[in-house]
């Protein structure tokens, strides 16, 4: 196979039907090159002024792709936000950019248009603005030129060649990894991409059986949760990629067995793009891509690659140990040494010791409030060890602190613990700063319960776990000696959560069938289940003690208002 080059990418080979006869498929549904040209042309009618940037948010891979290419070939720079939250979009639109996609302008479905304009892509022009995931601070805005994207795409094509088949992405195309490893790779190599979003294992199962999968572009969040029933050994994908966070060896072995294919982990970041790869079942060290130079700068990784914004060496915040001139092991981030009361403490050392305690699956330590302040720990427990009452929680914290006491000074021991059943990562497999803030929000705000994560299922159902802090304001005066959470507070939380989750839903309709069979006491761990149906929103609050509240909200239909 000839090597993929920057020139090949910049020539935009996807504009030729001979290169890309089938653009996308879901097995049952196909999109050919004529559909592609028609929809790119429709998106090119987006009402953008000369020089105006587009903000593109669209969860549908087909619309996203057509809109993105429509902009690029018209010379429009595209901003890809991390999420479609109204605040995020408003802040970006304030800079003069126009929102297109699911929440903004979309082409009229039956618009008759001519052929698309395939304007040239210039190597040094900015193609996209993206945002870091925010796992190590507030999200930073970054730009990527077409040259950088070309090399991002070539790196995958050249290191991991594919025969014909569908490129299935389980990760967002709004991030550099999904965009380059899945979408741009497919377009450049003339392979069809997955027509529908594939976040859930059911989706992967579908593609594995309905199509021939060339590559599955995934993340630890998804590979760690493959259902036991999933077995692709009779139709394995050619390649599986994982990026966004480290994949545990256990998960790598299991995923390899179930998918019948090597799992290639990609190490990189939004800033640097892809840097190196490894097969966790073979080795724990990383092998840089052929076009990437690496060396150590003190204990930090220093690199140079055509995916960087500069041709100079760049020092990364990750600490490394080289095992030979090229291969290295990652030791963790340099910024994970913090000070508490002036004393230096390694958060990673704390996490390692915590992870050795009985029933602890995983731990992450943070300073949620400010530098030099108390350490807090997010701890994933085995299901049977999860505390369901205040008493159980206290005993567990006591045991964990005792387990740490020999290795750490009292000052270094986590003061705040958040016990989770599922690691609270986003669709990219990241534990973001926003999630961390949410986990500790009750420290600052006594009106909110302690949020401990949300598990989503398809079909508009979600489960949110909370604990009732001893100092919740709603407990005041209800009742001396026997505090309980008033029903009105429970309903309020359910409605707040619904509003965040489905911002377009009017949560002001009539509440009905409210029931509060048993009271919620401080220290309890409760689960709120929200179920969104077309005309109503049902909620239930349960704990180990049974059902505490339920009810539903009849939704007003906006059209008749």
């Amino acid at each position: 196979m000839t090597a993929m080059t920057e020139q090949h990418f910049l020539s935009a080979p996807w504009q030729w039907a001979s290169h890309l006869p089938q653009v996308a498929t879901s097995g049952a549904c196909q999109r050919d090159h004529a559909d592609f040209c028609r929809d790119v042309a429709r998106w090119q009618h987006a009402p953008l002024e000369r020089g105006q940037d587009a903000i593109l948010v669209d969860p549908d891979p087909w619309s996203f792709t057509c809109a993105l290419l429509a902009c690029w070939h018209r010379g429009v720079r595209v901003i890809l936000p991390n999420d479609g939250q109204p605040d995020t979009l408003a802040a970006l639109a304030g800079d003069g950019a126009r929102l297109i996609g699911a929440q903004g302008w979309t082409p009229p479905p039956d618009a008759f248009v001519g052929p698309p304009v395939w304007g040239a892509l210039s190597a040094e022009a900015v193609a996209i603005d993206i945002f870091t995931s925010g796992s190590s601070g507030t999200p930073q805005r970054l730009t990527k030129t077409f040259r950088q994207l070309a090399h991002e795409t070539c790196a995958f094509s050249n290191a991991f060649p594919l025969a014909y088949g569908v490129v299935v992405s389980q990760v967002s195309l709004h991030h550099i990894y999904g965009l380059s490893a899945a979408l741009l790779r497919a377009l450049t190599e003339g392979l069809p991409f997955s027509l529908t979003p594939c976040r859930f294992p059911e989706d992967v199962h579908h593609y594995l059986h309905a199509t021939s999968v060339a590559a599955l572009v995934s993340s630890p969040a998804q590979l760690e949760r493959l259902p036991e029933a999933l077995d692709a050994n009779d139709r394995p994908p050619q390649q599986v990629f994982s990026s966004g966070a480290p994949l545990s060896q256990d998960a790598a072995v299991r995923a390899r067995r179930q998918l019948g294919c090597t799992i290639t982990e990609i190490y990189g970041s939004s800033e640097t793009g892809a840097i190196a790869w490894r097969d966790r079942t073979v080795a724990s060290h990383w092998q840089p891509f052929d076009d990437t130079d690496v060396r150590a700068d003190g204990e930090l990784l220093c690199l140079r690659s055509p995916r960087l914004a500069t041709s100079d060496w760049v020092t990364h915040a990750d600490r490394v140990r080289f095992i030979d001139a090229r291969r290295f092991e990652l030791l963790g981030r340099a910024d994970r040494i913090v000070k508490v009361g002036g004393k230096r403490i390694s958060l990673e050392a704390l996490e390692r010791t915590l992870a050795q305690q009985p029933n602890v699956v995983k731990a992450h330590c943070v300073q949620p409030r400010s530098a030099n302040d108390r350490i807090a720990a997010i701890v994933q427990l085995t299901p049977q060890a999860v505390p369901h009452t205040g008493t159980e929680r206290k005993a567990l914290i006591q045991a964990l602190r005792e387990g740490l006491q020999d290795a750490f000074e009292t000052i270094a021991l986590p003061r705040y613990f958040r016990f989770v059943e599922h690691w609270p990562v986003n669709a990219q497999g990241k534990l973001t700063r926003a999630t961390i803030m949410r986990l500790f929000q009750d420290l600052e705000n006594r009106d909110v319960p302690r949020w401990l994560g949300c598990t989503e299922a398809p079909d508009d159902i979600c489960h949110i776990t909370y604990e009732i802090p001893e100092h919740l304001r709603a407990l005041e005066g209800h009742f001396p000696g026997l505090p309980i959470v008033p029903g009105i507070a429970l309903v309020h939380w359910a409605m707040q959560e619904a509003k965040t989750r489905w911002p377009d839903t009017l949560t002001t309709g009539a509440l009905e069938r409210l029931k509060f069979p048993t009271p919620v006491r401080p220290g309890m761990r409760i689960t709120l289940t929200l179920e969104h149906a077309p005309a109503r929103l049902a909620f239930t609050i349960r704990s180990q003690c049974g059902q505490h509240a339920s009810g539903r909200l009849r939704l007003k239909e906006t059209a008749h208002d």
Partner: protein
Amino acid sequence: MSDTSLTPLEHELAELIIDTLELEDVSVDDIDPDEPLFGDGLGLDSIDALELGLALQKRYGIKLDSDAEENQTHFASLRHLAALVEARRAS
């Protein structure tokens, strides 16, 4: 066994400790007035001592000496602390 019921001042101080130090799982009822606040009992540490010192100064106008040994006596238990506040407030 010691009497674990709290005087009004002890109750107030227990609330002050919980609020100041943001002990998220401790309620006033959990604090045994005779148990050590630091080390094994409530598990408070040297930063807590500083913060608690500031809070006492703010609330009661009590200034603690920087003498660590003396402070250790004052902070030995809730009962000791209450005695200190009583004495200094009166003077």
